[in-house]
């Protein structure tokens, strides 16, 4: 557990950014779940809870999700459930428990770019951008490649672009981190395949569908080609060989569920 000298509910993002950049021990407070496990001596905790960023805004083109929304807000959003065919819920439902997901925020889950993140794996398969206070709008792809700095994640924007998306994960127990996470979406006949927890940060590749999914040889060759584009690693949850083999299984399940 950390210690923290001051707590400030800021009145503007400008105030938050000024505080954040003034001292490396001033931190943005999300749901505090990850932060709590650090043993730092923090100076000021910057709370964005008064800035109306705990809302999911929606229009015909898409969603703008405030960084202070909880993971549970995403999971229970009826419109997103319909738009993305249950994939949002599938990605979030294994993250510890309901009371945990009521506490965890979107900002705290996305900004640190955790390698194990279910949230990032899902977002990378969607037409998604993040709005950062300093850098402005950045595509999710570039955002993932970049490392966390002193910026503030303000919103996550997801377009409604009629893509179909499904989420698959392999876990040793129901609520543990994923051994491997997988999101696959399809739009205009092209697949976006994302693997997370490999155990690196989520990586997406765009590929054409298999020439003949019903033909075992064609299917195996296609899967081999797809997984060759990822680097797998070993940690306490699984070896790189295991992850590589399981990647083919999860991608197959996802493609079967997409049914295209």
């Amino acid at each position, binding site marked *: *557990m*950390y*210690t*923290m*000298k*001051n*707590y400030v509910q800021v009145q503007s993002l400008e105030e938050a950014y000024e505080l954040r950049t003034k001292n490396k021990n001033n931190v943005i*407070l999300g*749901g*505090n*779940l990850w932060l*709590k*496990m650090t043993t730092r001596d*923090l100076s000021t*905790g910057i*709370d964005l*809870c008064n800035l109306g960023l705990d809302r999911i805004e929606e229009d015909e083109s898409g969603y703008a999700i405030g960084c202070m929304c909880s993971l*549970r807000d995403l999971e229970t959003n009826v419109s997103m459930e319909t738009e993305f065919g249950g994939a949002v819920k599938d990605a979030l*439902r294994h993250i*510890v*428990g*309901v*009371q*945990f997901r*009521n*506490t965890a925020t979107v900002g705290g889950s996305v900004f640190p770019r955790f390698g194990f993140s279910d949230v990032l794996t899902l977002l990378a398969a969607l037409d998604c951008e993040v709005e950062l206070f300093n850098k402005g709008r950045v595509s999710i792809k570039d955002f993932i490649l970049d490392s966390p700095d002193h910026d503030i994640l303000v919103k996550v924007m997801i377009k409604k672009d009629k893509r179909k998306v499904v989420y698959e994960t392999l876990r040793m127990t*129901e*609520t543990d981190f994923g051994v491997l996470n997988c999101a696959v979406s399809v739009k205009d006949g092209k697949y976006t395949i994302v693997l997370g927890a490999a155990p690196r940060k989520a990586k997406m590749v765009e590929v054409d569908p298999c020439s003949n999914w019903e033909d075992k040889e064609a299917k195996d060759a296609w899967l081999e080609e797809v997984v060759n584009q990822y680097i797998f690693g070993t940690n306490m949850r699984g070896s790189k060989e295991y992850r590589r083999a399981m990647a083919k299984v999860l991608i197959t399940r996802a493609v079967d569920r997409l049914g295209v």
Partner: protein
Amino acid sequence: MKITVTLNGKRIEAEITPDMMLLDFVRSQGMKSVKRGCDTGNCGLCTLWLDDKPVLSCSTLAARANGKKVTTLEGVQEEAKEFSDFLAGEGADQCGFCSPGFIMAVLALKKENPNPTAEEMKEYLAGNLCRCTGYQSQYRALCKYFGIQEV
């Protein structure tokens, strides 16, 4: 710093430190049902309701509860007793250490979804760990409680 919280229906004003967790705050106010069972946010024992939503009080800053309603097991005594008598009658619990967080989660589920399916029930309660039962006795009792056909 000072916060004002409606704790189990009573408005209180109290002095806290900026890094005080809601768990330690409610315990300092006598709500000793709320306990810390882990260091990682995994066990659910510290579950209470913040503005009626179940959250982990071990990880929520007390400062964030300012102006809000906080409900612990002590604030829902009647429903809690009814449910824990039911659990005991079914022989569902053992040492009872996990019960305070578990009961707050079950009652939250009942409010949010009074007729859950077995899957919905399991998913809702997955964040409450129990070191004794292996979950089968709780599962059987809860199926009965919610009128679910056991699968």
